[in-house]
């Protein structure tokens, strides 16, 4: 599904130049569940953003579903993204002004799904993440774990092939964290490819393979399954 080769990403500010990704090469197969680990600042989020087509690399190749996307423009990336990729963030990033239902519904609106369909699909995923009873609440009224479950629901409502999760349990206690990990595992078992950044060895244990990074490069890979 994903194959990146010699990928480079450099951040230039007025004074310094940070090499966030340094000739990084990774491959992720369809249906895999990959964990990315490494110290803070080693480029994990940068990698995820590029995989998620939110950012473009400076050099190297990025093949997504057999297509070279490294040189895609903003518009094509956005198009590819909204149909294929779901995101889960550490800080949930739910929209405060919208209810649970409306938050989850949003990606469907943007991909142009009809209102009746939307209702059905949102309810389906809310059911799946067991948050249906809170559908009319606002994010502030939910616990962290519940919020993250909503975020996961939102990430999967469009049935993406790939889910990118950046420290999804980072703001959660272990109990709630496990719930979310359980959810991701289930999704993976149903065929969704997952790339997850985490600091927790325990969470990484849910994955098939751990990629360890340092200074924008892979150091080792542990295959768990």
């Amino acid at each position, binding site marked *: 599904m994903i194959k990146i080769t010699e990928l480079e990403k450099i951040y230039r500010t007025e004074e310094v130049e940070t090499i966030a990704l340094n000739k990084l090469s990774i491959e992720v197969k369809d249906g895999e569940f990959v964990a990315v680990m490494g110290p803070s600042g080693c480029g994990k*989020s940068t990698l995820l*953003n590029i995989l*998620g087509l*939110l*950012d473009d690399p400076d050099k190297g190749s990025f093949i997504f579903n057999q297509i070279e996307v490294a040189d895609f423009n903003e518009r094509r990336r*956005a198009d590819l*993204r*909204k*149909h294929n990729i779901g*995101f889960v*963030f*550490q*800080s949930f*990033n*739910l*929209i*405060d*002004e919208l209810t649970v239902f409306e938050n989850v519904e*949003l*990606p469907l609106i*943007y*991909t142009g799904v009809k209102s009746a369909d939307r209702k059905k699909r949102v309810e389906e995923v809310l059911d799946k993440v067991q948050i249906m009873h809170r559908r009319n609440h606002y994010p*502030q009224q939910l616990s962290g774990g519940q919020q993250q479950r909503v975020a996961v629901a*939102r990430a999967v409502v*469009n049935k993406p092939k790939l889910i990118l999760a950046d420290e999804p349990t980072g703001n959660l206690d272990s109990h709630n964290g496990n719930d979310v990990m359980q959810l991701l595992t289930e999704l993976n078992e149903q065929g969704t490819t997952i790339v997850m950044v985490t600091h927790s060895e325990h969470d990484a244990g849910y994955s098939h393979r751990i990629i360890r990074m340092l200074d924008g490069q892979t150091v080792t890979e542990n295959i768990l399954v």
Partner: protein
Amino acid sequence: MFKNHFKIAWRNLLKDRMSSVINIGGLAVGMAVALLIGFWIYDEVNFNKSFKNYDRIAQLMQHQTANGNISTFNGMPLPLGKELQTNYGNNFKYVVMTSWAGDGIITAGEKNLSKRGIFMDEDGPRMFSLKMIEGSYDALKYPNTIIISSSMAKAFFGNDDPINKPMKIGHKLDVKVTGVYEDIPLNTEFAGLEYIAPWSLYLTSEKWIKQSEAAWDNNSFQIYVQIADHTAFDAVDRNIMHSKNIHDAPEDKKYNAQVFLNPMRDWHLRTHFENGIRTGGPIEYVRLFSIIGIFVLLLACINFMNLSTARSEKRAKEVGIRKSIGSLRGQLVMQFYVESLLIVMVAFALSLVLAQLILPWFNDVASKKMIIPWNNPFFWIAGLGFSFITGIIAGSYPALYLSSFQPIKVLKGTFKVGRLAAIPRKILVVMQFSISLALIIGTIVVYNQIQFSKNRPIGYNRNGLMMIRMKTPDFYGKFGLLENELKNSGAVEQMAESHSPLTNVYSSNNGFSWPGQNPSLDEDFETIWVTHDFGKTISWQLKEGRDFSKEFTSDSSAIIINESAVKYMGLKDPVGTIVKWGTDANAKNYKIIGVVKDLLMESPYDAVKQTIYFMDYDNVNWIILKLNPNKSAKQSISQVESVFKKYIPSVPFDYEFADREFASKFAAEERIGKLSTFFAGLAIFISCLGLFGLASFVAEQRTKEIGVRKVLGASLFNLWRLLSKDFLLLVMISLLIAVPLSYYFMNNWLLHYNYRTNISWWVFGISGVGVILITLLTVSFQALKAAVANPVKSLRSE
């Protein structure tokens, strides 16, 4: 402590430059407008106040009733002056008869200049407290004297002593300079009055004046009074009310003339009477502009408050930190006040600069000579006081609201400025746009009315019509010579003489009767005496009958009337009807030989009155010339000038053009139009500035949300719509408020005019669409800026 507050305030100002510029700029513009309007109002309400006896001086006016309608005017019969002095003397300190101020030809030595002057009773200079530079208040004691303004003295005599120098008024009256007065200030009734000659001289100057000495029905004079020290205007009013009526001839008693005092304080601003009741006048514009000034300032203050609070919400975290390290609430309150005051003071300084820059233009539009009263302590007290209050009010919300935050909440990030916090802001935005929209709609209506009246059919051809007033007897008997030579030169196509110019009617009369007349019809007719070629010169349009003709000697008793007269008189078949003028033995019969389309000669906003044109070569004051349309006007004018100089060398050549004179009738409305354009423009500018600031604030506040939505697949259009929608909604609400409001007010304004346009829906359409477009433009800039930003950045801030 204060220094520290100030330092931090200054840094905050510099840190958030964009919003500082918007904040200070908007406020400064609003303040500058308020200043200008303030100066204007100050000037208006202080009109005439430079006369020392301002509170005691009045002009006599009278109400007369005809056809159940009361009309009010300031013309007075000559004998009333003496009557007031002898039989009502204890009411008055001075009673001063005057002529109407007008241009006269003044000659001294070789010099020959047209100057504005008046004839006045000898007490005039004393009553009006003129500042005598030379001579005394008794300078007009003897008939053949004149007092002149210092600039007129300079014009005639340079640095020589003018006292006792001989002069001639209108090539006829010999006088000697006995006094020089300081030029009368511009913002007074008598501004530009260059000479004053004695009443006693006026009485002997013309036969008709002498004949009016016992004529109670000739209201051709003015009377100014200063009331006695111990009394009051209303008391005097009661005493003199019937002073004229009791002397009126029995047949004039039905007009029920009532004399009253028009106090000086009302001369300028409360000039309108409707059916005998004072209904205002320019005071309405003073009120209107006060309201506009307050509104524009309010708009600017609203911006300031909106942006300050919006900005302060961003600082919730700072407040939390400050509190947690021990800042007292009072100190925080102080900090916000200092910041707000700093901004206001900078804005005030800037507004003074702006006002100074705009003032010349503003003076021009308002035809005033206002200056910024830099040396006036009250000005500074008012200006700084106002700024201080604005600063306190605008600073109050952030100061009191923000400083009350609980630090833990703010720091833990659970603090959210609630949805409700935005509501006052939204109300304020709606207010702003309602005001701006109302101003825009008002402006369009004013211009519509001007345009509508300008396009009104006038019944004659106004192009190339030159009008020359016969100011002195030197003109008399020269018409034939002038006509001959001017026509031969090819400069003039046609010319005639008339009693009135084409843009005014000098005379109205009653006492006409005709067969089948409804006896209750006793309104005045406009009466105009013209010579044979008048109609041909101005190309009037005959509807029935014929024009005056030299072939009929009987035309000396022929009249032509206009369509309004036909309607007023109720004539079925006007041509041939005999109209009798007068009742006694002197009554004369006139035969209607023609009917012309209404000629618009007076106010373009009023209906044309019933008018009678007589054919008469003696009763004429103006020469009307139709310039040759095939020649350049410039060339023709100089040819006309040289011919006039040749035959009438002693009178300076002076002329007017009918079209230009007519255009000047719109001056007041055009001034209103220009000013309201200016204010409406500024109002919308200030509102947009605020909107711009607010949009940027909202966009910033929602960066994260925008980022999330983008990640979820929102397109640029989705995001633009998201951010613009709310503002657009506010503008729509404003439209709903502004439309009925402005419709109501502008409809009322239009009611002042008898000939008026109506407000059509497109006025609202255009204003609405215009404002919506401007709003979208303003907001879109911020919306798009936020929408194109890379979401990665906004999501990173965790």
